[in-house]
Structure formats: C-alpha cells, structure tokens
C-alpha cells in the first residue's frame, strides 16, 4: 500500500469509532457448525455411495432403452402393415432360441425354417396382425437380417406412412376383405391414436 493511500488520521478516527464484535451466541453457533461438519459430511457420502451407483446404472439403462424405442414402432408398423400380414410368420415358436444366439445368423435361419411349418395358417391374409406384431417384436434384430437374406422382395420392410396405410385399408374394403380391413384399422388406431381418420377407410 503506497503511503499516499494511507491516512493515519482517518485510520485513527475510524478505529475510534469503535470495535464492535459479533455477539457471543453468534460465535458459538458458527463454531458449533464448523465442528459438526466434518463428521456429518462423511456419513452421507459413504451411506449413499451404493444407492447412487444403482441409481446411475438405472438411469443409464432407461436412457439406452429410450434410445432404442424409436426402432420398435418401425418393427410394429412393418408387422401391422397390410403387406406384412400377407407374409409368412417366420419364427413364431423360436424367438428364445434365436435371441440367445444373435450372432449366428446361419443357425437362426435353420431354426426359422424348421419352425415355419409349425406356424398356424400363417400365409393367409387373415392371420392376426397382433400375432405378427408380437413375432416381429420378439424376433427383433434377429428376424430382420434373416428376412432380408431370404428375400427382401417377399416382405416389404419399409414402414407405411399413415396415409399409405389408410389407402391400403380402403383397398381391402374395395376388394371385399372387410375383416382384414377392420383389423388393420384397429391396429392403425392403436398405432396412431391421435390421427384423424377420414371417412372412407372406416
């Protein structure tokens, strides 16, 4: 501090104004708080370490699941779309076996072929779309590459837009396939509950 920034007379005058101190009770409260802090901090950190780790893992798991969610509607829409209803249900009884070996596409293909005859009347247009949806959901990642390998032309995997789907329903009605149209419409409503459906497909 330079000398010109000091003024002894002002300093002396200031000191003469008094030297107030904090009240004793305030001192004691602060010191008591300072003393209790070290032990208080350690306990919760130790106690919460495991629950916090579990919570972090759960948050991570939910995050990953949420990131995967957009893929499921695609699979469902493929399964529920009218084109898909007409395709064989490839692997209804073997999803567990397939999901257990996702890295073995050849083995999956064999299992799928073996299982295909067991599927009840799968190729008919009247096959329940919900069953197809369940298959698609369970077979998941295994089914899709297999289907692609066995002929993408047979199964259109491109998801329908709502408009295209409704057009398809209307077409079914024109062809007199009312039951299929109704089922497909019901699935459509499940899939797009907020979509305003025009009169004609109903």
């Amino acid at each position, binding site marked *: *501090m*330079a000398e010109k*920034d000091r*003024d002894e*007379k*002002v*300093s002396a*005058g*200031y*000191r*003469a*104004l008094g*030297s*107030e*101190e*904090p*009240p004793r009770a*305030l*001192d004691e*409260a*602060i*010191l008591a*708080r*300072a*003393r209790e*802090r*070290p032990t208080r*901090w350690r306990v919760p950190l130790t106690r919460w370490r495991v629950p916090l780790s579990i919570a972090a893992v759960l948050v991570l798991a939910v995050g990953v699941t949420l990131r995967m969610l957009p893929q499921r509607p695609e699979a469902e829409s493929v399964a529920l779309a009218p084109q898909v209803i007409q395709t064989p249900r490839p692997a209804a009884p073997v999803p567990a076996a397939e999901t257990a070996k996702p890295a073995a596409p050849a083995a999956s293909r064999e299992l799928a072929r073996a299982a295909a005859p067991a599927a009840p009347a799968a190729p008919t247009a009247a096959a329940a779309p919900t069953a197809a949806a369940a298959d698609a959901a369970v077979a998941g990642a295994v089914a899709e590459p297999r289907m692609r390998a066995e002929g993408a032309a047979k199964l259109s995997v491109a998801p329908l837009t709502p408009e295209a789907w409704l057009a398809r329903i209307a077409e079914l009605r024109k062809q007199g396939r009312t039951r299929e149209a109704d089922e497909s419409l019901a699935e459509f409503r499940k899939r797009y509950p907020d979509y305003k459906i025009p009169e004609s497909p109903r």
Partner: protein
Amino acid sequence: MLAYRHGDAGAFETLYVRHKGPLYRFVLRSVKVRALAEELYQEIWMRVIEARGRYSVQAKFTTWLYTIAHHRITDHWRKRGLQLVEADDADPPAPRAYEPEPRAEGRQGLQRLAAALAALPELQREAFLLHEESGMTLAEIAAATGATEAAAKSRLRYALAKLREAMGDG
C-alpha cells in the same frame, strides 16, 4: 484452512478468532443494520465452512474470506434492487488550502467521520473498510472485489479524501 479442510476443527477456531472482529465490522459498516449484518456475517461463515472441501491455496485466506463476503453483500444489494456503480468520475477532491475557522475535534469530528463513512458510495466504502479492517493491499482489494487494481486505488482515494474532508482535515 487446509488443516480445517483435513478435519482439524481447531484450525477453524483459530481462523475464526483472528478474523471475526474485522469481518463483523466490515459487514456491519457495509449494511449499517445490526440484525442484517449478523445474518450476513453468519451466512459468510457458513459459506466458508461449506466451501472448505474446495479450498485451495490460490490466495491468502483473508482475500478468499473477503471475496466471499463481497459476493454475499453484493447479492444483498442486488436483491434490494441496488446496483453497485462507480460514483465518482472526476478526480478526488484536492486537499483544501488552510482555512481559518477552527477544526472540529473530538466527538463531533468522529460523528462527522461516521456520517461521512455511512454516506460513501458502496464501492468506495467497501475499499476503505477492506483496507482498514483487513489490512489488505490494493492488489488484494482488487482481487477480493473483482476490480482492477486501478479501480480499487481510485475507490480508496475517493473514500479517503471524503473522510479526511469530513474530519475537517481536507
């Protein structure tokens, strides 16, 4: 403070005893209301206690303590809708020439000093109080208040000039 950080509560007590008076007066003369000063004073120490885990030796403890105090008091002014601004653009008043009338002495002079101190703009009063109570250098005052050293120097000079004048010594 490092000792306290490592669990030595007695080290905090030593620090507290050393700084409690100057800090209390700094806060009291900044906000001027005893009840409010006690509340802010306690909050400042609570922040010190809570921040002990993050304390590292980057500056003197005094500078760190008064930085916390500065922030807490600034928050208080802001909550009350007051903005701290530099109050003087011109040079500080030059010492006056000799005046024939007798200077007030004693109690009257102190009363005028107290009134002048209370009337100082916040930033100037803060610089003066930091200088008087904590013995901080201009660089430390600048660090604690987030100002440049030149600004701290200017504030202190204005404050001293006004207080000197109030004591009839201008």
